[in-house]
């Protein structure tokens, strides 16, 4: 993944059961209808209702103008944020470089948000570039010895990836048994601690015990040849922080680094 997000609106539909066929509680159905009209959620969402055990699709308009220019946001350092009891979206928008450590512990994911599927595709050709799924963790399964092992991923792209203009990222996630208000992700990409681009996506409201799918559109800006060359020549010096917020409070922090050399 490179920089820049301008979720430019992409709607897709799956043929799924209607709410009545799925046996959805009318109250829930009503809330679905309300969501349909909102423009705050990017991509489209599939929601599994706890009662129907079936899939419902809602068309969610993609949020426009999520490009974060960080204008007027005060500069923040990692050390400053660590002193805060709560870290807000505005706090991380002020960060000027990749954090050295995680800004929250895995235990702070009190909403039990779990990403179960991820897919990226080239929007120009529709080519699926990568798709991965994670089976649900069985109860009582062996705990990872490193609490941060599950919060870090590494991508090894080829130089051809840097030529792409728009990439759609579809993420599927489950949530715990409490409703989630204002679920939001801010993802910041750096090359050698130089901010390349900041992405800001809102997932919106998520029902308790639901599985949700949303697609975000990353629009990549044109990079100079010099920057691309450096990014290719220096694998894993392109890094990203992904901050997840619920009700403007940081609950998750994932990291990734990237190679564009076409090799490990």
């Amino acid at each position, binding site marked *: 993944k490179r920089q820049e997000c301008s979720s430019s609106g992409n709607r897709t539909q799956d043929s799924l059961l209607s709410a009545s066929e799925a046996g959805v509680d009318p109250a829930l159905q009503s809330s679905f209808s309300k969501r349909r009209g909102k423009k705050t959620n990017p991509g489209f969402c599939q929601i599994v209702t706890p009662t129907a*055990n*079936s*899939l419902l699709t809602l068309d969610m308009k993609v949020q426009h103008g999520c490009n974060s220019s960080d204008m007027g946001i005060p500069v923040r350092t990692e050390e400053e944020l660590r002193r805060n009891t709560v870290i807000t979206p505005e706090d991380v928008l002020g960060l000027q470089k990749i954090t*050295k*450590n*995680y800004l929250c512990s895995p235990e702070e994911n009190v909403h039990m948000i*779990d990403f179960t599927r991820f897919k990226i595709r*080239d929007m*120009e*050709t529709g080519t*699926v*570039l*990568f*798709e*991965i*799924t*994670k*089976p*649900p*963790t069985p109860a009582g399964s062996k705990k990872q*010895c*490193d*609490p*941060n*092992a*599950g919060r*870090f*991923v*590494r*991508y*090894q*792209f*080829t*130089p*051809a*990836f840097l*030529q792409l203009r728009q990439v759609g990222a579809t993420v599927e996630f*489950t949530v715990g*048994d409490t409703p989630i208000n204002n679920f939001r992700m801010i993802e910041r990409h750096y090359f*050698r601690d*130089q901010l390349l681009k900041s992405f800001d996506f809102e997932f919106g409201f998520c029902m308790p*015990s639901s*599985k949700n799918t949303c697609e975000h559109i990353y629009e990549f800006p044109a990079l100079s*040849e010099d*920057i*691309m*060359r*450096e990014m*290719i*020549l*220096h*694998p*894993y*010096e392109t890094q990203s922080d992904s901050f997840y917020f619920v009700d403007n409070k940081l609950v998750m922090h994932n990291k990734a*680094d990237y*190679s564009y*050399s*076409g*090799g*490990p």
Partner: protein
Amino acid sequence: MMDGWMDQQTKLAVHLWEFPLMQIKDMSVGMDMDVSGVSRTHVSIRPSAEVKATLKPEAERPRCSSTPCSPIRGTVAGYQILHMDSNYLVGFSTGEELLKLAHKWPERPSEKYPSPAAVSTSVQSTVPRSVDLGVHRSSRIFKAKSRYYQPYDVPAANGRKRRRSMPSSRDTFFRTLTQGKVGKRAQLKCLDYLNLDKLNIKESSDTEVLQHQLQHLNLRGEHGVSKKKS
């Protein structure tokens, strides 16, 4: 001794990177889930005939000369890779996977290449967190293997050719590859974010040697020094 070590490294490289290309086409999976997210219906991922064909050894499948080696794996530390287009993506790892790699690397005979077990033994020491020395070492091997990789044009759907990598950057890139200097320092940081000091690692019989080797590593400092502000 070095030859034996190299053979072992090569075997690991084969294990990790030489799987046949696996491209599972998009599959629609409809499943009933209960509130805990556990599937109630059996979901079988049935590869298509095309996928089965791709699972054959690479020699049987014609490959474009410009297509790089594709270390496509079916599973990565609990994840299942359903699709990976090697034109754009040749590898994906998780922190857990990288840690496992670090633990698997055998002890290096030379101080120049400390054993990945050193990563685990840094748990109980006060030295700065080591990083993925094993990955660094494996990267040296893989760079050699990808020496002849040629970036290529990716035609757009409308027939417009996308920009090819600049020849100058490609030349420099291969030159640097040959010299083995590409991203060396950067790769040393890949496990910086993992709490290696909290790992419950079985003690190595060569703990003292490995700890001594780790004392010479100051990866965070190296990263800061090596950065060149553009």
